[in-house]
């Protein structure tokens, strides 16, 4: 069977129109769940056509006086895993609930990308996330797990990979070194993007 290729396969999602908001590949219904403090979590994002984005945002459901959420986008490597940082949008202050978004200015070619969010400042913030684990073929472990929670969302790990939750306290790293948890209760952040052109 041929490998998936954005250049040859039909898009998996419709193409957002200019000034429309859209999200990534959401594996389950929206819910309010916890986030891993200072660990990057990823949302698969398929860009079906060349476009520019000018907004990236989340919905904060539980605010905290010192809360912040850093947002960004990574591209994919040859194996469709998070690879190089495309844009670090900075943080939005999760000190109040509601729709929080940061302005970006980025042009993307068609293909797979990864929206990302990392909770910084306070571990008490909750944003709208998917209540299902991310389970897509590109996420797999070196050892077989018990399939209780197959391949949860990517988590940025230490340079050696693995399951350590890296302390991402500042800017996003230029390269996404990804690990994963097995049986980890980790869910996928719902991130919205707006097409500008």
């Amino acid at each position, binding site marked *: 069977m041929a490998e998936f290729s954005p250049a040859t396969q039909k898009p998996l999602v419709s193409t957002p129109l200019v000034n429309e908001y859209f999200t990534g590949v959401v594996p389950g219904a929206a819910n309010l769940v916890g986030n891993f403090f200072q660990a990057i979590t990823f949302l698969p994002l398929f860009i079906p056509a060349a476009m520019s984005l000018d*907004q990236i945002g989340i919905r904060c459901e539980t605010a905290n006086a010192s809360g912040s959420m850093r947002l960004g986008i990574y591209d994919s490597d040859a194996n469709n895993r998070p690879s190089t940082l495309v844009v670090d949008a*900075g943080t*939005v202050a999760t000190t109040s609930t*509601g*729709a*929080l978004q*940061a*302005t970006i200015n980025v042009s993307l070619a068609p293909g797979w990308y990864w929206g990302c969010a990392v909770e910084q400042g306070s571990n008490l913030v909750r944003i709208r996330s998917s209540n299902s684990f991310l389970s897509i073929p590109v996420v797999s472990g070196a050892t077989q797990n018990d399939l209780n929670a197959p391949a949860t969302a990517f988590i940025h790990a230490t340079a050696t990979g693995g399951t350590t939750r890296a302390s991402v306290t500042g800017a996003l790293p230029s390269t996404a070194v990804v690990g994963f948890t097995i049986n980890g209760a980790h869910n996928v952040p719902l991130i919205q993007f707006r097409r500008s052109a």
Partner: protein
Amino acid sequence: MKQITYGLGGYDPSKPNNNIVEEIDLPDPPQQPLPPAGALATLLAVEGVLTVIDAANAVGLTPNDLTLEAQAWAVAANQP
């Protein structure tokens, strides 16, 4: 719900208004009608056949769900 938009670079306390470039109040989404079972449970609660709690539990909803449904009915009934 409030929508806060930050400028390039996101939150920045060194910039005016912490780099917030827009802050608007979004209207709350309209209440979605309950499924038929929820509507029936609401009707039974309104008519006093069941308590709101029992009616809600019977269909896996919350008492607030039934209350909002009943309020929507009342609004609709008063419209010309």
